[in-house]
């Protein structure tokens, strides 16, 4: 199962809910305002680093660019994908769940 999360962790609890209700090993895609969760130096960085240990974590590149987030600002272990990569993740990992 692919878990998708599109909300800033500073606005909503979607990141917490996704972490609580996803199984270890299921990949995660952060998109739209969800990409802020993948940046260094935030109050949720430890939580997201722990998530990277349990899940393959992807972020949507076009959403990073739009928000002026360079790849150097991403937490270690996070992989950037484009829309084509997003499609591949959906195809490869079965059911998708969107945490809004």
């Amino acid at each position, binding site marked *: 199962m692919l878990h998708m999360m599109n909300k800033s962790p500073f606005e909503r609890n979607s990141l917490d809910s996704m972490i609580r209700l996803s199984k270890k090993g299921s990949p995660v895609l952060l998109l739209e305002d969800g990409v802020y969760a993948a940046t260094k130096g935030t109050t949720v960085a430890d939580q997201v680093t722990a998530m990277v240990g349990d899940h393959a974590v992807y972020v949507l590149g*076009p959403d990073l660019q739009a928000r002026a987030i360079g790849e150097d600002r991403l937490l270690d272990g996070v992989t950037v994908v484009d*829309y084509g990569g997003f499609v591949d993740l959906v*195809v490869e990992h079965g059911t*998708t769940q969107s945490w*809004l």
Partner: protein
Amino acid sequence: MKIGVLVNEGPFTHQASDTAYHFVKAAIEKGHDVLRVFFYYDGVNNANKLSEPQADDRNLVKLWGDLAKEHNLDLVVCIAAALRRGIKDEILAEGFRISGLGQLIEVGIAADRTVMFGD
């Protein structure tokens, strides 16, 4: 692979419809079969042909319609959600059709993947 898509927000307030559009376009380019895009909640506003964005911004209503025309894509607007929001045949943009919520469940059954975009 057969893919179904659900869009739950309109073309301006949230990014959901933009992301769905880029996803669907990329899926088609990769040779997947996007069976249907279903518009629910405020997503029905994506089908309002009276919508006039400023000239320097994207026009999602038109972009969806063009994509539908080019790839014979089935864009379905939920009738119950649409009527509440004043989306009727008179103002339905090209490429969209209005039908029942059953069409969402149906594509969920028929597709290998159902992907939801919302807020």
